[in-house]
């Protein structure tokens, strides 16, 4: 699980072009949206693509994203339970 979280942080930084943010800067429980990393609606859509591309998870209802993308913890949990690759 820890490995997945670290991998996930690296991927988030990469696909969302988070300049000057390092893996070590993101806490597992940090809020990704709002005050945390300050991500916006396009970033949320990009995370949906990330789930699909890297882990073979298709979100049929984008509204699900809200709880899944709360933090690295919630994302990693969801991926671990639902990944197909």
């Amino acid at each position, binding site marked *: 699980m820890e490995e997945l979280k670290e991998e996930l942080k690296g991927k988030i930084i990469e*696909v969302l072009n988070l*300049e000057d943010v390092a893996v070590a800067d993101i806490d597992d429980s940090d809020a990704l949206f709002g005050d945390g990393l*300050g991500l916006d609606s*396009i970033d949320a859509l*990009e995370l949906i693509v990330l789930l*699909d*591309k890297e882990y073979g998870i298709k979100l049929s209802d984008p509204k699900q994203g809200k709880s899944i993308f709360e933090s690295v913890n919630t994302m990693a949990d969801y991926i671990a339970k639902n990944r197909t690759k």
Partner: protein
Amino acid sequence: MDSPLYISHYCKIEKGLISVDGNVVFHADEAPFSDFIKQAFKHQQLDYPKFYKMDNLSKLAFLAAEVLLRDEEDKEDIALVLVNKSGSLDTDVKHQESIQDAANFYPSPAVFVYTLANICGGEISIRHGMKSEQVFFVSDAFDATTIFNYATYLLASQKAKKVLCGWVELFEENYKAVLCLVERAGTKLHTINNINQLVKN
């Protein structure tokens, strides 16, 4: 038209050089565009993480507007009139690559949104709070007559207080931006010839 209009300031980004009113404000030695523009952005010492999410055309246009407008006040009514040759083709190619292969079909929303040429204008508007008239033209060569007339119309009709207009072209490693700020005060007259000289030289 009533009172004369002037090009109060202009900026140029080309071949690793950024200049304002003819004075070099940043220079980087040979570097790919992405490195050059990042260095130039850091040089501005601006806390604006959204910059890194932009496509290359937007980065170019954003920085050109930034060096011209950073000391401007009251920017809400500055209109934006932009033109280039390649539209958003540079990013269009990237989006196409993401859908070219059916087995690896992952279009990115963050790329797709930039497959419209006017998004770079939207980025400038957001940064400077310009709730103003805006248009994006595409033409093979810079059409100074249309830009001159359009900018003049916006000021004469009082649909804008000032107009930021010019050329923002980027495709792969070829880039050039020349923006002029047109208003009622200044020394260099707003004429077709003057705009043409600034953009084409």
